[in-house]
């Protein structure tokens, strides 16, 4: 066990956990931020995607010890009122089915648009390819990313 100071969604939080604990479980079990989801635990599905200093990363593969000092943003902190252009576009296209993968999809999309505000179809497909949606909402995801890119 060791103490870590984490900057999550603009707030500094202290946790006392094993240094090998993936950030995913620190967020979910210790900080009660359960919007970030567990899907595979091996960086294959994207359900656990968060932003680390603005870049989309898989929190299931990021030990908490490596996250100290970085700016961590989770779905809960993506916008104050749930109105980030990506979230709005997701609502507009009524993307979710079960909804389980969508936090990860939204975080990946938001990071993509941060770096590339006007992605082509192919760039969207490449960026979003690491996020599995078992319900198959891929077309709506792509359409929502495009809508969000027009609003940014």
């Amino acid at each position, binding site marked *: 066990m060791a103490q870590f100071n984490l900057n999550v969604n603009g707030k500094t939080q202290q946790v006392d956990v094993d240094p090998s604990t993936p950030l995913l479980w620190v967020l979910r079990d210790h900080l009660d931020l359960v919007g970030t989801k567990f899907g595979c635990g091996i960086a294959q599905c994207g359900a656990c995607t968060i932003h680390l200093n603005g870049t989309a990363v898989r929190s299931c593969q990021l030990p908490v010890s490596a996250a100290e000092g970085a700016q961590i943003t989770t779905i809960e902190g993506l916008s104050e009122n749930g109105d980030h252009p990506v979230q709005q576009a997701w609502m507009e296209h009524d993307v979710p089915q079960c909804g389980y993968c969508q936090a990860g999809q939204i975080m990946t999309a938001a990071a993509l648009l941060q770096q590339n505000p006007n992605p082509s179809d192919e760039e969207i497909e490449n960026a979003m390819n690491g996020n599995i949606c078992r319900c198959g909402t891929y*077309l709506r995801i792509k359409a929502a990313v495009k809508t969000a890119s027009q609003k940014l």
Partner: protein
Amino acid sequence: MTKVNTKLDRRSFLKVSALAGGGMMLSFSWLAGCKPTVEEELGLPKEWFELNSYIKIGENGAVTLYSPNPEFGSNVKTSMPMILAEELDTDWKNVWVEQADFYPERFDRQFTGGSQGIRMGWTPLRTAGATARAMLVAAAAQSWNVPANEITTSAGMLEHKGSGKKANYGEMASLAATLEVPEEVELKDINDFKIIGQSKKNVDGQKIVTGKPLFGIDHKVEGMKYAAIVHPPAFGMRLKSFDKSSVMGMSGIQDVFSINVFKDDYVQNFFDTTTFPEIIAIVGNSTWEVMQAKKNLVAEWEKAPETKIAMAGFGGNSMEVTVPAGLENSSSHKSRMAEFLKKPGTVVRKDGDPEGMFKKAAKVIERTYSAPFLAHNTMEPMNCFADVKGDRAVIYGPTQAPEFIMGTISSSLGIPRENIQINLARMGGGFGRRAYSHHMVEAALISQKIQAPVKMVYSREDDMSAGVYRPTYSATYRAALDENNNLLALHVKAGGIPESPLHANRFPAGALDNYLAESWDIPSNITIGAFRAPRSNFIAGAEQSFLDELAEEMGKDPIDFRLELLKRAETDPVGSNNDYDPKRYAGVLQLVKEKSNWSQAQSNIHRGVSAYFCHNSYVAEVVDTVIKDNKPVVESVYAAVDCGIVVNPDAAANMGEGAIVDGIGNAFFGELAFNNGAPTKTNFDTYRMIRQKESPKKIEVHFVESTENPTGLGEPLFPPVFAALANSLYKATGKRYYEQPFAPQLEMENLRM
């Protein structure tokens, strides 16, 4: 808030409402902290008045509608309340939807599966809405002293034109809640629908995109422990022993013990499908710590002998089911299934003289199709929260079928049903998998043992290797043709491990004078369960691929060929036991022909068509593929659907798109194989799922305009995709695809997958 589990007369919601009177809060809210929009718009009412199990109205006009069925992504949580709201005649923007708890005394059929939610809920929900409306009208009539039949309603307002009196529902709710429930109510004319048929956004949309705790896996209470499970590494194995000391010293670990899912004398029901009746549970302070301990646990496993299980049969009888011993392999599965090419099956339907026709045929075409086991792979792995203390239990988790697991939980815990509360979490996918809810029993037993609240979570590897798969299937189709290429007879012989996929009375039965259907199955200890459109999800692909090949052989357009057969089934059906409506079947083929511009073929686009009937609905699909950079790309998919009235069109299209993507993914990549009883794939690094890049570039879902009552939707778009894709790939590559998954064969054609 605690739930009041008063035993009430089961005679549906009508009786309950008369007793309930004012403002009984039923559901204890798991979602504290989420701000519902209606609260924001109208403010929380001071008091709620309950009109029946589904509907309560606040004095300020806010309406709470309880969505009875578990939500796994098919959006019933929006569409079922839409049906209530329609007949209640309220304004959708004043509606606040809550997930009902499992409460069979108040709600009928709280089950999500078989695409039956809307079909079976249609009349009860309409009646519930209309009854509440009638009681509000009666309250207004009494208050204003005017005849009830002169009062009209619209968007949550009551009006008496003659006297100029007006009120909103909230003003009449307290009186309405005390009135007699009318014995008869009138339902709206479907032409007067204002909500049904108009797309409404997912009522949980905002919560989903902001990451609110909605799922069982998100649940947490004070003092809750975390649990992981360890099950045998292979089908046909069981626990021999384990070494507690191998994990007990580890950080955060509280206890390790084994649990038996069933009591010895328990008679199982059809949904008591559990692969491993004895598993090891590890309890600790956090998910990560119990998952670490899992890796360290030293356990010994042994081969399980053949076992007999008592299973509840029809009419209160119980029968004995045998689970064979042995460690099975996919290679031996294949050879055992291939034996049925020569062996006869059980004849399940025979029309005319098929054998005679095959004898005199000028040409016989014979093709065999197969598909592997599939894992459901719901995005949210199996998990459950349970709090069992003394003789009371609260269970909260993902289940499609609370009724089917209630008896098991009660028996395994030794706690009567009345003392067990099951609350329904939003599910991160279901696809049939969560109709089998033994994760709930496991969590409950763990909690009972430690007498503390616990959340048990499967790893992805646990989830993928725990069984309840889509079975592996094989089907051989034969056609007898005369010298002029007329179809004389059709023969299908189909089976699987451990069940047959055949629906012998579906099309093309009824359209052929000479038809023979045979069925077989091979027992196994690999457990199976419903998987999106069970059986249909394979046999549709086989049948519709074969009809495509047959049409080509006969020199006919594949759509015209099917329409000809359907015409025959309509005008002069063979046999009387054909379970489809040929006209509606033909209707979707005609619609897809029009919408896909079938007649205007483009040379670089390769098209395949397929149509199927299941879950009371008719679907035809056209898939267009192109070869781009040496890669098959699904450009477009056109679907024509006849599922009666469509309640929520945009959400319905969403689900249709999802089923099509699911089908294309499984056709290309889906496969679970076994080596010495162990699944060869246990996570997404090896089990390939369809992703954004392989998804079709465009999907159009067209609904037949209909005034028929709604039928199934979650499943029917899935089965036809397999053949539409295979037939399109044939056009693209000149090769037929008989064996799923297709990707390895496409790679052999030097294509990139």
